[in-house]
């Protein structure tokens, strides 16, 4: 044996792994906010020995949505809904993957998952989040995403159409659906809908870091900015963000080059110019605010409800007013959108439902029996996921038993690409 010491160490590591994940879980970032922003460091992501080259194909679906707003359709290129499809040569299972809030089918996390499942031998169809403006415009029946029951209807329609497009030339052995973050809960609601309609017949459903109670998750993210302001009443945003850029500039100066990549933030946080955790947290809140703003604006523009853009006006990105609309949209937190646009619409269609009823129906509680009784539904999440509230982890464990895999830390989706997580993910579908 050439390297007895390293062999002994691997044996030890194997033993530790065997004794239980809580003990040996080695994801290297312990702070949940930092993990959420940095993600999985490149040296510990799941890797394939000899990855095959992947040639993704873009599927275009058209649902004949009526656009009174032609310039809007042009801006987003949204007459068609675009999906990413990757195909195996021979017979293989097909997996649908749904993106998280505000993310498209080609976001970095999605591309990672698509590649992972492709390398593992699956056909893959990647779908943007129903909260992403192009999805809303092309495929949403309500233009009010976030209502998981209705989002599931839209996604189901998208999936059945996509299947029709590919099934003639693709040998499909089994069908799976997964998603991360909001896409995780979407996957579960799609699975539930499928258990009623039986048009696709999913063999397995996996939620990755899903919200348990949507209100809790959204509040946690919505509150980051106000909480930051409470803690730092004197700090203006300009100062905070100048500081962020100054640190980034110093980091680039020290490393001798300006290079952005998946490892940039990780390297920054390892070095002497690391951002304070409060700033890291703020970045999450601000990023969420941007998704919420785009979402609220698109919803308002498509439904002509007159909250952000006058009801009789058509969205035109060339308009000199576009910057005003942008600024107004940034005043819309997710819960503002929920209370002003979503709740009234729901109550019109479901008379008698209170705000709490709505939240219960669109959260995991709305499909609790399905989750409890279907052994083919699983969940993976982290004890310190920042979108979860007190009792959520216990709820998942109570309802789903050993189909709930809970990692001790990793933040919100931070450890999604970590070698252990991906191994478990693939294991879930293999067995």
């Amino acid at each position, binding site marked *: 044996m050439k390297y007895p010491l390293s062999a002994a160490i691997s044996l030890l590591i194997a033993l530790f792994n065997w004794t239980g994940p809580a003990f040996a879980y080695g994801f290297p970032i312990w702070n949940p906010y930092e993990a959420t922003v940095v993600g999985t460091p490149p040296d510990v992501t799941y890797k394939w020995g000899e990855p095959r080259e992947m040639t993704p194909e873009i599927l275009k679906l058209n649902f004949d949505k009526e656009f009174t707003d032609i310039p809007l359709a042009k801006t987003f290129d949204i007459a068609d809904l675009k999906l990413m499809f990757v195909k195996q040569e021979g017979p293989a299972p097909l997996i649908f993957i749904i993106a998280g809030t505000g993310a498209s089918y*080609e976001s970095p996390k999605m591309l990672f998952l698509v590649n992972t499942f492709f390398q593992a031998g699956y056909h893959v169809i990647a779908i943007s989040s129903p909260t992403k403006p192009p999805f809303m415009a092309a495929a949403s029946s309500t233009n009010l995403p976030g209502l998981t029951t209705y989002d599931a209807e839209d996604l189901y329609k998208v999936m059945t159409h996509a299947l029709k497009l590919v099934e003639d030339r693709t040998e499909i052995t089994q069908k799976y659906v997964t998603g991360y973050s909001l896409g995780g809960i979407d996957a579960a609601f799609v699975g539930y809908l499928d258990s009623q309609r039986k048009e696709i017949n999913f063999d397995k459903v996996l939620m990755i870091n899903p919200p348990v109670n949507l209100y809790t998750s959204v509040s946690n993210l919505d509150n980051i900015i106000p909480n930051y302001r409470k803690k730092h009443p004197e700090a203006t945003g300009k100062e905070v963000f100048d500081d962020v850029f100054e640190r980034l500039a110093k980091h680039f100066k020290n490393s001798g080059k300006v290079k952005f990549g998946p490892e940039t933030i990780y390297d920054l946080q390892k070095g002497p110019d690391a951002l304070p955790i409060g700033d890291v947290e*703020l970045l999450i809140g601000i990023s969420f605010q941007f998704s919420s703003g785009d979402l609220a604006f698109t919803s308002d523009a498509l439904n002509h409800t007159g909250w952000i853009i006058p009801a009789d006006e058509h969205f035109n*990105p060339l308009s000199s007013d576009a910057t005003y609309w942008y600024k107004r949209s940034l005043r819309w937190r997710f819960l503002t959108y929920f209370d002003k646009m979503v709740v009234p619409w729901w109550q019109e269609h479901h008379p008698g439902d209170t705000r709490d009823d709505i939240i219960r129906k669109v959260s995991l509680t709305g499909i609790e029996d399905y989750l409890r009784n279907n052994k083919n539904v699983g969940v993976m999440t982290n004890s310190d996921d920042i979108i979860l509230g007190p009792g959520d982890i216990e709820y998942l464990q109570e309802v789903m038993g050993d189909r709930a895999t809970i990692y001790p830390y990793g933040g919100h989706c931070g450890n999604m690409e970590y070698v252990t997580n991906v191994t478990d993910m693939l294991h879930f579908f293999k067995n």
Partner: protein
Amino acid sequence: MNTLLRKLFVAVTLTTGLWVGVVAAVHARADISELGDISTLRDPQMYVDIEAQANPLDFLDVYDPLEPMNKRIYAFNRIFDDYVFLPALKGYRFIFPEFVRGRFQDFWANIGEVPNIYNSLLQLKIERTAVSAWRLVFNTTVGIGGLWDPSTKWLGLERAEEDFGQTLGYWGVGPGPYLVLPIFGPSNLRDTTGIVADYFAEKEIDFLGVKEAESRNDTGGWALKVFDALNTRDITPFRYGMLGSPFEYNKVRYLFEKQRQLLVDD
């Protein structure tokens, strides 16, 4: 010159991460007037209330006095990209396998090492000047005319982009008004000046005779120009619409200026 689109990509890479977030400033006393005429909206009072809670999010403005014209050029660029650039790129990628395109990339990058050298020198960055000069010599000889990049691969000497816009910035010239250039995309007055200056400097230095040949108005000259442009588009992953946001213009504008500032400061 041909690095501009690539830099825009860098800006957009930022958005794919969380950095889009930094666009926002947590601004204590925002002025309601910056929201435009809200009187025809359904609930103008809500905006007043939000301001009163001193809890608005605001993004930092970019100086863009030519916004109407810039937006039109932006729209033109998008159409040009959809109907000319991307279809041509498709053909280019079909004809040349990845390996061959890799050689083109290294070749053009090597030609583009020239401005890195004199701009590093003009910014008194001695080490960077030496590295860029060494890269040029080593890649041109060992890398066979720059078709390969052994400096990065074998010596670990990575490329550092320096252009005349950055040199101007280094000596304290501000960005000036934001400009969207036809086909080239986002820029500002300072960096556009830089592009022009680099163009003439590169032509004057005329390393390996490429820039002079490229500027000729004959078949060879045009072929080189087209190749240069296709190579640039090939290594620029940015696609219009990829942000999936109704406010792509505003976001790209902001991120462009911010990443230029980072390049100036480094």
